[in-house]
Each structure stands twice: as C-alpha cells, then as structure tokens.
C-alpha cells in the first residue's frame, strides 16, 4: 500500500537510563557496581546513580529486515527490545513504529487460569493492539489449531498440562506478527516443547515483516537474521550485514 521508503521501525538517538537506588553504604556499592556492570554509570543532579542502559542509539529497519542484537550481558540487548516494544520509554530520542509490535518475551503472558481459553485468546489479542472485530475474525482458525474444541469454553485451570501447553503456544503465536521482537531463550526452550513447536515457531517467525532477535548464540543469529547490531555498554559498536558484524564481534572478543 505505502511505498517501502519509510522505515517500519526507527530509533532516533534513543537514550534510556535508570536511576539506581542504593540505600545505605553507597560508596562501596557504587564501586562494586561500576566494576560489575557493562552499562555506563553516571550521577544525576540529586547525586543518584544513573545507569545509561542505552546511549543515543539510532537505527532504522525496513520491511523484510531481520536484525540480530549481539553483545555481552548488560550491553543493552533486552533494554533495546523493550524500548522497541514500548515497555520502556526513552529518556530522550524518539521511537517510530509503523505496524503492530508482537513482543515474544514471555510465552505465557496474560494467561489467566480462571478464564476460558477463548477469553485468554481475546485478552492476548487486545494486549497486542488488535480490535475485538479482528480477534473474532481469527477465532475459528485459532480454535482449530489448538484442537481443544469445546474445552475452549472451559476455565483454563481445568485443562491437563498438555492442553495447557497447546493453548499457551497457540495464544502466543495466533496473531500474525508484523514486527516480531524475540529474546533468544524462546527459541531455546525445553526440548520436548520445542520438538512439538518447532514448525509453528518457524512459520511464525517467517511470517513476520520485521524480526528483531536478541541472542548470545551466533549460529542462531546467522540462521535467522540478515542484519546485525553489536551493542557494547549501551552503544552501537557495529551495525550492518550479519556476517560482518559477527566477524567484528568475534574478532574483538577473541
């Protein structure tokens, strides 16, 4: 419909920082903290310790882009995902999103065991920003995928663990993602679960217009992504084709 010149997801000099409330014995804790964390640490006007989790991060993703976020623990991968999802707000800078964000940080998100399967599907859809009409249009398909039949009318707490798994998974993957944000561990879930769910996850990820994946596993990044960002201390150290970024990252950490 619209020409593909506009980025689907754009970050313009986004900074996210958190005040850290340390309580007593501040100097010791501050010293320990400044050595233990990969983030940048500063102090604000009230002499609170401020951790810059992301510092002036700019990037633009277009339709079809599959971006891997690479970096050490604490480099800002999860923070970046969360700011894209709108869970964190930037302290400065702007996040522009064209389309619906599907965050996949927690498969069981929003599952309420006292509600029926149908109600759980509805809540999930509404949380993702779909309208009630859009959800109702998709309900028959979702119901078929779960193979739960009339059980979907029953409270989820009456389900067996196998049924629960099927529902949870169907709920997590039932609405086509436009912009899919994932943490690596979703792909590396427990083996039994993944064996059943592999095909569904693959199809789900393939359907996404844009994918952003935070991962430590470089093989996973190569397999799923065509672009990469290497984050270090909340700043972009390298951005570009996935192979180039991985080479640079591996060279630096070797």
């Amino acid at each position, binding site marked *: 419909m619209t020409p593909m010149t506009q980025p689907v997801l754009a970050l313009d000099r986004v900074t996210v920082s958190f005040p850290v409330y340390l309580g007593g014995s501040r100097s010791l804790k501050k010293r320990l903290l400044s050595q233990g964390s990969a983030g940048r640490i500063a102090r604000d006007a009230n002499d609170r310790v401020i951790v810059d989790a992301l510092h002036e991060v700019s990037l633009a993703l277009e339709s079809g882009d599959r971006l891997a976020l690479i970096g050490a623990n604490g480099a800002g991968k999860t923070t970046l995902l*969360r700011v894209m*999802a709108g*869970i964190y*707000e930037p302290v400065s*800078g702007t996040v*522009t999103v064209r389309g619906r964000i599907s965050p996949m940080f927690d498969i069981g998100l929003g599952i309420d065991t*006292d509600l029926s399967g149908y*109600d759980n599907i*509805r809540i999930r859809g509404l949380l993702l920003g779909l309208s*009630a009409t859009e959800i109702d249009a998709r309900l028959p398909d979702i119901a078929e995928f779960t193979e739960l039949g009339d059980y979907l009318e029953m409270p989820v707490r009456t389900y067996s663990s196998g049924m629960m798994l099927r529902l949870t998974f169907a709920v997590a993957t039932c609405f086509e993602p436009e912009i899919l944000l994932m943490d690596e561990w979703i792909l590396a879930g427990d083996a039994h679960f993944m064996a059943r769910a592999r095909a569904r996850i693959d199809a789900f990820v393939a359907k996404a217009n844009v994918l952003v994946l935070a991962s430590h596993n470089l093989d996973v990044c190569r397999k799923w992504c065509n672009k990469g960002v290497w984050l270090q201390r909340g700043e972009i150290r390298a951005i570009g084709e996935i192979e180039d970024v991985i080479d640079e990252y591996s060279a630096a950490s070797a």
Partner: protein
Amino acid sequence: MTASTTLRIVKPHSERTLRDDLASIWTSRELLLVLARREISVRYRQAAIGVLWVVLQPLFTTAIFTIVFVVFARIPNQGESYPLFAFAGLAIWQYFNRAVSDGGNSLVANAALITKVAFPRLIIPLIAPVAGAVDCLIALAVLVIMAVLMGAHVSWMVVLAPLVILAAALLGYSIALWLAPLNAIYRDVGIALPFVMQVAMYMSPIVYPAALVPEKIRWLYLLNPIAVLVDAIRWLVLGTEPPTAVGFTVFGVLTIVLFVGGRRLFRNMEGNLVDRI
C-alpha cells in the same frame, strides 16, 4: 493485509500531552472492558453465593451500624429511616473505597503484564472503578427496593444516581493515579491505605448524620468530597437535602486538580517502574 497498519511514535513522557493520554485511554476501551470483566468474574469465582455478596456486604454492614447507632447509642432520628440512610451512604462509600484501594494496588497486581507488553498503563487503575460500577448499581437497585418496601418516598431523581457513581469513579481514579505508582515503589502506601480509608470513612457522614457533628466544625464537611458524594446519593434516592453549591464546587475542583497532578506523577513514574515493581 496491512490495512490496519498503525503509526506509533514513542517519545519521552515529558513531551506527551494530556490530550494524547486521553486518546490512548479511549483507544484501549475494549481492553479495559475485558480486563474489568475479568476482574468481576475472578472476584466471585469460587464463592458459592457469588454475586449475592454484592448485596449482602452493605446489608450486613447496615445491620451492624443500625444496631450500634439506633439500638445502643440511640442517635436522634433525622426524619428518614436509619437503615436507608446508612445503606445509601455505605453503597457509594464501598464503591469509592474499592476504586481507591484496588486502583492504588493495581500496578502491583498487574506487574506481570506491565513488564512484558506495552499498552496504555493509565487504564490499569481504571479497571477497579469500571468493574465496581456494576456492583454499585446493583446495590442502589436494592436500596430503591428497600425504600419502597419500607414505604419511604423514592424521588424520580433516582435516575440521576449513576452520575454520582461516575463522580465517585473520577475522584477515586484521580486518587489512584497518585497511589498506584507510589505503592509500586513504596509498599508502605498499600499497607497504610486500609487504615487511612477507615479514618476517612469515620470522618465522613456515612453511618451517622452530619447533624451529630458540633456546629463549629460542620463547615469542614463542605470540604470533604466523600460527604458530597454521600449527600448527593441520599438526595437523589431518598430526597434529603442536596449538597451545597460550595460542596459541588470543592468536589469538582479537587477532582480536576488530583487528576491533572496524578496523571503527571503517574506518567513521570511509570517509565521507571518496570524494573522496580
């Protein structure tokens, strides 16, 4: 395929206007209603008599206060029957109390959602007043039935009673906007709240008439927004004296001030809450 494509721009909260926020609440109304329905069904899920509790709670409380004030303390009769007088006050009070208390705890109670998915968090403290409105309407219906059975005159103005519920909801929401983020960081707020609400209840003419209060300090009740709510519901249903114009004005100004300030505090704090809740 992407006909529903939406443009969303996330800016620092300092750059967002009240109008943006009101618009985001309106767009999330379907989600709000579903979350409120969940609240209602979860509340009475394992209760054998279910929704009957909505009626029994104010009825029992009314019975207790009737025994204490009429049978033991023998307070002077105000012209209307004490049970109707107390039930009307308790019905709106219990609604307001729930909007403030549950609303104040709402961010903590919904921590799992807040940290995992983005949606306008301003709707979270609204869940309690929306869900509670159903209970309050039922309680008011019971009040009207009681009044008719007891032979009291019911004013036609009773049809305006939902406006008092709306007013209580707005005031309760405005207060919850302050309490919810503060409670997320300092749990002291949630611990102190039941006690504070208890004090507020006895400082308002809910179970005793304002006429019992010494003349000298009675003007204080003009400044008490809870007294305005209670007087308004009695006026509309039982035809007693309406609240004064000063009372209405104080109520309106207070609600607006609390809402504007609460919305600002909520917005300033919500970004920092995610990791500290």
